């Protein structure tokens, strides 16, 4: 994470700066995902348990009643009993899926914003002929001096 921040601050080159932002961003993703890890757990893709098939079958054949019945059977979700926290489903632990969702969409949004940034850099290059900050500053300064 810090290397990304370092690149953003230290370099004057705009493309390299964007790479730095990308590094920074990916590192933040890693922080989030590492929080969601549960030791010895599986990816949050539920192994097809008997319950799963039953739920589909019963819901398909009978009516919504069955689903409500099943819902009633779920233990209190906010119960924080350490031994049973990840157990009551089917005895298998799964990693926390919520950060995965957040980061998944963040990655796609990240590349979209990156593209906007790169597009701006390309236009800056066309306008100033350079993508180094100090050179752009010089050009701006000269233009202002000439104008006044």
């Amino acid at each position, binding site marked *: 994470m810090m290397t990304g921040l370092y690149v953003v601050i230290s370099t004057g080159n705009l493309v390299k700066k964007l790479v730095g932002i990308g590094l920074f961003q990916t590192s933040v993703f890693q922080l989030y995902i590492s929080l969601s890890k549960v030791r010895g757990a599986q990816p949050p893709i539920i192994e097809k348990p008997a*319950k799963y098939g039953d739920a589909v079958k019963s819901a398909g054949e009978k009516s919504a009643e069955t689903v409500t019945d099943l819902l009633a059977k779920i233990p209190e*979700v906010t119960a924080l009993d350490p031994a049973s926290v990840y157990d009551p489903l089917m005895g298998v632990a799964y990693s926390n899926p919520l950060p995965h969702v957040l980061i998944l969409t963040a*990655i796609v949004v990240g590349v*979209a914003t990156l593209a906007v940034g790169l597009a701006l850099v390309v236009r800056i290059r066309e306008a100033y002929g350079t993508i*180094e900050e100090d050179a752009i500053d010089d050009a701006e300064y000269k233009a202002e001096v000439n104008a006044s």
Partner: protein
Amino acid sequence: MEMSFPIDIFVIIDLILISMLLVVGISIVRLNNLFVIVMLYGVYSLLAATWFVSLDAVDVAFTEAAVGAGISTVLMLGAMLLTSREAKPTTPIRRWGSLLIVGVTGIALIYATFDMPAFGDPNSPANSYVGLMYLKATITDISIPNVVTAILASYRGFDTFGEVVVVLTAGLGVMLILGIDSRRSRSGEVEDTGESAEDANEPPAVKETTKQIDALNHHIVLQVVAKMLIPIIILYALYVHFHGDYGPGGGFQAGVIFASAIILYSLIFGMDQTRRAIPPKLVQFGSALGVLIYGGTGVITILMGGKFLDYNMLDQSDTIHAQHMGILMIEVGVLVTVASVMLSIYYGFAGRYRQLKDQNW
């Protein structure tokens, strides 16, 4: 899945991956050749994706590999070609100054990590409440194995709708800044060669030269292999999309993979042919269409008497089936928007190459 190793082998794998990430990051800092930097960024993304697999985040790993290592690298290479290949080395004052700032921030962050729950703790606050609730409710509410897809498309459908709109907005931004079809753009300063006036029916001579610039059309092997690969890639994208309920995958990943197939086509056969196969107008239309499908699903559920994106209304006698339908519909919306936006961004960058002159670099 209890670990029986005395030393957790996954910890070793994690440590190796983290140290590789660190090495790549530091090399990016030290280098000045932009081409190498961009390629190393791709490596960094790929390593991060590997680590995400080790952290059980298979969906995220999939997205990171497709987006971070794939599309981002292509876009950065494109921007680099349009700008410059070397970065100026930084001045010593700036280097030490920023090292100081970064060092202080880093120490603060490391101090903050002492308050964080232990790695892999199942009872940490982050892992206890909402995520656990989603895990349990998914089985009975939606009944699809991939909980990530269930949360993404159903429980948090609002968020995802927002993300799709953000992607669309970014695509619009790139279109506005660069122009999706720059042959017809009106920024006359760069393209004063008369090429801008020509439409699709340009003289064959001009077409021939542009083709030679941006197409690898003298590589027979590449063409044949690409022709075999592209249908498979598109098929794979559709598999990833429709199998997203059961395994890792979904609209976001499928859209990016789909776009990468088209980008491969344009790399091998040239932009002109790609524009003929998939006109920029279609891409523009698709970007908006996807959001329309997504939002339209929400409006349909309102019209059927429910709330926005309340899929249960789609089939009240069988809510699980209704949830499946709703998820599939909005995932189609996501697929169309993401694929179209990625393509429009690519068109925006690729359309500029023809304006490059040799003396520019």
